[in-house]
């Protein structure tokens, strides 16, 4: 009897706690910022742009032919998170990745010409030393995964929609 009452009490408390805990999840307005449109006509080859999406930076890089080549010309065997460059882009000139290090979430350097691009010509995370290549793939350091590719689509040749 005491067990039954206790069990009922516990279930009741759990049900009462659920809305309290659930209220801590992202609110509707936070979720509503879920997509952005970006004009990419002003990014010359070799340059990059950073935009905010869901409170996180997204790197849009207009890659040069050399950068594309170095991204494609990689032995998959040497990769930590094995992905071809093809799987990561829609058009080879444009690389779109979430600019959040997959280790513990710092923003890697490498968007500006003068930044440290690491040994693989892409991005370098100064927090714990992760290095990414020109496809945003993790090549060295503690991060376990490649920079994530967000869902996006080309609305036209000069405009993309992220989210």
């Amino acid at each position, binding site marked *: 009897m005491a067990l039954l009452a206790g069990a009922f009490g516990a279930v009741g408390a759990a049900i009462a706690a659920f809305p309290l*805990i659930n209220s*801590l*999840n*992202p*609110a509707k307005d*936070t979720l509503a910022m879920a997509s952005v449109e970006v004009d990419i006509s002003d990014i010359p080859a070799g340059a990059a742009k*950073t935009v*905010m999406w*869901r*409170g*996180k*930076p997204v790197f849009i890089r207009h890659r040069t032919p050399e950068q594309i080549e170095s991204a494609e010309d990689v032995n998959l065997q*040497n990769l*930590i*998170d*094995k992905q071809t460059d093809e799987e990561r882009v829609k058009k080879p000139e444009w690389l779109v990745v979430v600019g*959040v290090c997959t*280790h*513990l*979430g*710092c*923003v*890697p*350097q490498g968007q500006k010409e003068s930044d440290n691009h690491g040994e693989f010509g892409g991005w370098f*995370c*100064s*927090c*714990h*030393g992760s290095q990414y290549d020109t496809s945003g793939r993790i090549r*060295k350091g*503690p991060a*376990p995964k490649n920079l994530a590719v967000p869902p996006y689509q080309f609305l036209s040749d000069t405009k993309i929609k992220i989210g």
Partner: protein
Amino acid sequence: MASGEREPFQNTVVEWIDSRMPIFTMLQKEYGVFPAPKNFNYFWNFGAIAMFMLATMIATGIVLAMHYTANTHMAFDSVERIMRDVNGGWLIRYIHMNGASFFFIAVYIHIFRGMYYGSYKKPRELLWILGALIFLLMMATAFMGYVLPWGQMSLWGATVITGFFTAIPYVGESIQTLLLGGFSVENPTLTRFFALHYLLPFVIFAVVFLHIWALHVTGSNNPLGIDTKGPQDTLPFHPYYTVKDTFGLLVFLMIYCVFIFFMPDILGHPDNYTKANPLVTPAHIVPEWYFLPFYAILRAITFNMNLYFIVGLVFLFVLIVEFIWRKKPVYLSASAGWAMLVIGGFLILTGFTGDSCQRIDPKWLDENGGFKGLCGALQSLPGMSAAAAPISAKLGGVLAMFGSVAMLFVLPWLDTHPVRSARYRPLYKLFFLLLVVMFLVLGYVGSQPADASLLGIPLIYLGLAGTGYYFGYFLVLLPLLSRFEKTKPLPESIHQAVLSKQIKVEAKI
């Protein structure tokens, strides 16, 4: 504490209250005549000092909260306003800011005292666990407080720390989103951290109450680590220890004031005077100094633990339990133990080398053919790839960090030696002081960039060695010492020890 015999008080007002609610009787009993061992040294001051710091933090915190605005657009400016415009605001903030550091200093010394003199042993286990809980709550409170001024370190510290949770397989990302209330550290995060930063100190207060309750049931330990045997071993708490505590507190406060008035920012980080910017991570993120040793343990695990490594570890753990924790092995014969040791060691080595091969520069491997062959062979074993490792480097680091705090909670069952005080345990004293040194070394490692080195040795190795010693101390050394350490003869009683010391001093004079 309520219904016992009660001595009437002289003062009529006090008596009127006390006869209805015997609060003065209780105070008298717990803080007035409360018998305390008569041989306390100055290490026994730090409990009272910590209590004072908690009160200081709550008092200054409540005033700060009256001027502070928990909103990402306004938080940084509201703190600057406290610094410039609010009357004496700079002072209140500096007291609070440095107060967190000095609270931790007091508590670290308090914990050190407990470990050196064996205060966690029977019958004070629960008292000790409540203390460890207070320490854990303090860490959470200080972490959330540091986010409030919304500087660069606030934002990125919070990002990295909540990033730990993404290490948990499958549900990690959702847990992080739940904690943050969004997909990154943003306004919802700041507002909830403020609410919790306000709440937790009061929870700490409640646990401190339980801690002191437990203390007043068992009574205090003392530098000799032997039980009090009667009135000749003790002194009434008031005035003897109220005065000694006040004296120690005043010295402590003088040092605290030097920091508040002459170097208020030396313990903090200049980056936190730059407003938080979600697009730029500061070049060198470090937590507050009091977290550094734990941060070093987090970063010490740079390798993935694949199945080979984990099975090897499990073998070692079984061996520790069978041959070190137990007086006599129950399941294993000596030869089976040796076999397991060899196999376990081999598995750990195989798993570790195989995993490390993935991070070696391919060019270097090409030049060193022998290693290339070995790595190639190891890599071709099933389950050796980083992706197949059940415990990634990231998860391993997080487990090690939480595990290192967890050690405090189980300490009373790891060290079961009947003698408490390190004064009579020469080996324990040696290994414990070495632990303290290692802890400081870990703190240094945690303060440096991840790829730094000292005298040509990469600091990660130093971090790994420190981490290894830390866990080895608790899981292997303490149980071994509990069984085999021979102690020096204990004095018969506190009274006698104090007397013989006095006689020695008099003889010298």
